[in-house]
């Protein structure tokens, strides 16, 4: 793909043979105007950001299908089909340049592009889907006739285990090595036998999404290499400034740098935990005070949150040390725990400055025996959740509203409602990050005189 100034663009070759859902294997030869380079990328970024918001709000797959369809129409549509395809491909490759440049950017881009692909695929008709699967060159065999008959009972059991009363199986199944469909295996959504998974036609999505994610992941690594070795320098007067500008304008705050609201000192921490921590962090904090210990998942979730809230490394070490040494010796603390606290602050190992977990990550974690991390709205039993909400001061009416959201699996909305009940105010943006909860809370409790804009 070549970027040139104000010259007429030539259409991509052979539009007819490309399936309607591009897989972005190679950048096709085409010329792009410089202005379009940036504009196309911005439009696609609007779509990806919309996808990100949708996921954070806990939309179910059908809602996401609708959302993607709307977003695509709004930002990426063009009356000419081949123009639309060009924009699709060009914008993807430009954003690859933008988002290949760090692990965090790569992770975000990979997640969003995969989600986008997943829902665009779901929106395709069956024939188009089969064509897309074929494009990946996947080795899968259709299971028919006698073999299908012999498996009918087991396949029916799988269907029933997924919620359908009647055990009618689909007409087409594919025999695929189990390692090609990890999502389906993990969720016990397929029957497996002697290393083969029997995937229903309707489950093809999982197959292709895995392939897509893997391919884009590898591509990002290669793109990064090319970027750092040649492109960035070569394009320093032309594309590089555009590329560098694009990523920072569109990601939401990640709370890796705390701001002026968030300087807490150790002596205030108990007070502040009670008044401004979201439920997940309050629970961890209380358990830490109670047991003088937290397991790894809890240390990560709470520790990074405290960093985002403004707790300095020295204070963090003092804080954790004060609690843990009530149970383990000071030497053991230094040996086993101090290292990972410093690691979280980017002072050890590969020196990544880790960012506090957003709600999406916390909700999808899997607390096990002895753990206290995770999202209470998701992971607590009803009774425990009610008790915890009661301790936060919710009235029984407020609690019912929150529990209603929980029943419908809208965990972040439940947390938002809790926020609104506790502080007596509305929160239109919706909570999607524990540090956001903290900051909003502090804004209400300690209003400052507005500072001049920087």
């Amino acid at each position, binding site marked *: 793909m070549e970027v040139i100034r104000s010259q007429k663009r030539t259409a991509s070759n052979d539009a007819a043979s490309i399936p309607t859902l591009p897989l972005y294997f190679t950048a096709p030869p085409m010329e792009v105007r410089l202005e379009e380079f940036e504009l196309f990328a911005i439009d696609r970024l609007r779509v990806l950001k919309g996808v990100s918001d949708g996921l954070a709000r806990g939309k179910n797959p059908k809602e996401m299908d609708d959302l993607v369809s709307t977003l695509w129409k709004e930002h990426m549509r063009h009356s000419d089909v081949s123009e639309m395809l060009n924009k699709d491909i060009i914008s993807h490759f430009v954003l690859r340049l933008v988002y290949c440049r760090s692990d965090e950017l790569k992770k975000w881009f990979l997640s969003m592009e995969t989600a986008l692909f997943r829902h665009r695929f779901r929106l395709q008709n069956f024939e188009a889907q089969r064509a897309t699967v074929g494009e990946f060159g996947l080795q899968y065999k259709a299971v028919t006739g006698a073999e299908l008959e012999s498996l009918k009972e*087991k396949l029916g*059991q*799988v269907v*029933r*285990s*997924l*919620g*359908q*009363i009647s*055990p009618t199986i689909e007409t087409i199944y594919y025999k695929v090595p*189990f*390692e090609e469909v*990890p*999502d389906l*295996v*993990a*969720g*016990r959504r397929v*029957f*497996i*036998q*002697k*290393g*083969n998974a029997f995937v229903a036609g309707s489950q093809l999505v999982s197959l292709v999404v895995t392939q897509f994610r893997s391919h884009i992941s590898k591509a990002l690594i290669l793109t990064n*290499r090319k970027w750092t070795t040649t492109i960035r320098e070569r394009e320093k007067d032309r594309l590089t400034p555009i590329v560098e500008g694009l990523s920072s304008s569109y990601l939401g705050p990640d709370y890796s740098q705390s701001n002026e609201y968030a300087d807490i000192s150790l002596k205030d921490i108990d007070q502040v935990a009670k008044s401004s921590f979201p439920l997940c962090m309050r629970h961890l904090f209380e358990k830490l005070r109670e047991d003088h210990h937290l397991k790894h998942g809890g240390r990560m979730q709470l520790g990074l949150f405290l960093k985002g809230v403004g707790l300095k490394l020295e204070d963090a070490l003092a804080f954790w040390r004060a609690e843990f040494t009530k149970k383990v010796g000071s030497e053991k603390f230094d*040996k086993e725990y101090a290292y990972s606290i410093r690691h979280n602050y980017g002072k050890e190992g*590969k020196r990544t400055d880790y960012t506090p977990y957003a709600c999406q990550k916390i909700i999808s974690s*899997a*607390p*096990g*025996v*002895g*753990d*206290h991390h995770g999202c*209470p709205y998701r*992971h*607590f*039993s009803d*009774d*425990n959740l009610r008790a915890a909400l009661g301790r936060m001061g919710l009235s029984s009416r407020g609690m019912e509203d929150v529990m209603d959201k929980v029943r419908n699996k809208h965990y972040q909305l439940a947390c938002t409602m809790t926020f609104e009940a506790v502080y007596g105010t509305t929160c239109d943006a919706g909570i999607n990050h524990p540090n956001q909860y903290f900051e909003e809370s502090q804004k209400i409790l300690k209003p400052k005189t507005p500072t001049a804009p920087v």
Partner: protein
Amino acid sequence: MLIHKIFAGKLFPYTDIHKWLSYGHDGKHPGCDEFYFGRREFSFTLENDVYLRYKSFKNASAMEDAIKVNFPYKIDIGAVYSVDPDKRHAYAQSGTNVFTPVERELVFDIDITDYDDVRYCCSGADVCSKCWPLMTVAIKVIDTSLREDFGFKHILWVFSGRRGVHCWVCDVKARRLTNEQRSAVAEYFRVYKGNENNARKVALMGHSLHPFLARSYVDFLKDFFEGELQANQSIFSSKEKYEKILEMISDEDIQLELREKWENAARSSLSEEATSLARWEQLKNTLYSKKQKAPSLRMCVEEIVFTFTYPRIDLEVSKQMNHLLKAPFCVHPKTGRVCVPIDPKKCDEFDPLAVPTLSQLIEEINSGGLKMDVDDDDESERSLLGKSVSFFRSSFLEPLLKSCKEDIESSHKSNIDKSKDSFSW
């Protein structure tokens, strides 16, 4: 520590471990990778808790020498890396020559402390004949699934030395699984989801069990629950015990109904075990008759059985290729017992409290029973450890190496064929 020196000197089976982890790359076939063993990471834990990672050895005697110099009291096995772990700093962290794991057995770790909420005889590090059967049933469930569902063949089960078991799946396909794929297998096995914050830790949704769970239930779990578990744990015999189970029933009315029946039960002459069984029958009958009431009641009986009996694996151990796991035939530092292999076909007979300890083995050597020679055909002449090593060789190592040889030969052949095809002027 003197006894560790003796162990390192006379008892640790270096040659067998080396043969295993070489997977046939013994240099005898042109298709062998003679550096394969040398790219495996080991770690040593020494006295004073000194921990040495990224140790690697080019052959069995190098490994033996290192062990005899350091006398680690624990040896862990890690992954096979792209380059010799000892030399990893010479390689860039990015680019094509990266230091990264390329092969690693699919491993599982099951520890009885994760079952503390369902065993009443012991807790924490203790284990006894009443609760060990939980490990036995775990082996049966997982082993059957690994073979029937996943098609794996070369599986080694090892006693962890105190209170659990490890599983090493060594098929080449298993060794090459990515972290994501390992995670998928671990999640497939996961049923128990919980901690003290939620009461219903097993939630079986849908209208029937997945075939894997159904088979586990019918072939192993149901009978174990109604038989051995009830006999050993009497899980309904006291109020404290049965309350825990009543909490798992999501319908308050049913809870009340059963609670009343049991609270007001006249002091009967039945034994604890018989009382427990009777109550279980009552609970089952009540639940079966009321199962239409709500979706969450549909498989409540099964949920209870699964909560008490289904294997609880440590997911983190299985998910990442770079996770290190204790080597078989090590000695557990706290119990002195050797981490011996367990035969999954005879796991009912395995008794963790009868596993030879290091002192017993040393005693055996000292009393002149120097029958360390395992090639002796006479079973009864074999030493305590010899039996385990013999089992390791005949049931696991030999079939594995046979299969590895075949793999090496066939992939060598296909490489040669490929290069023939691409020959051009």
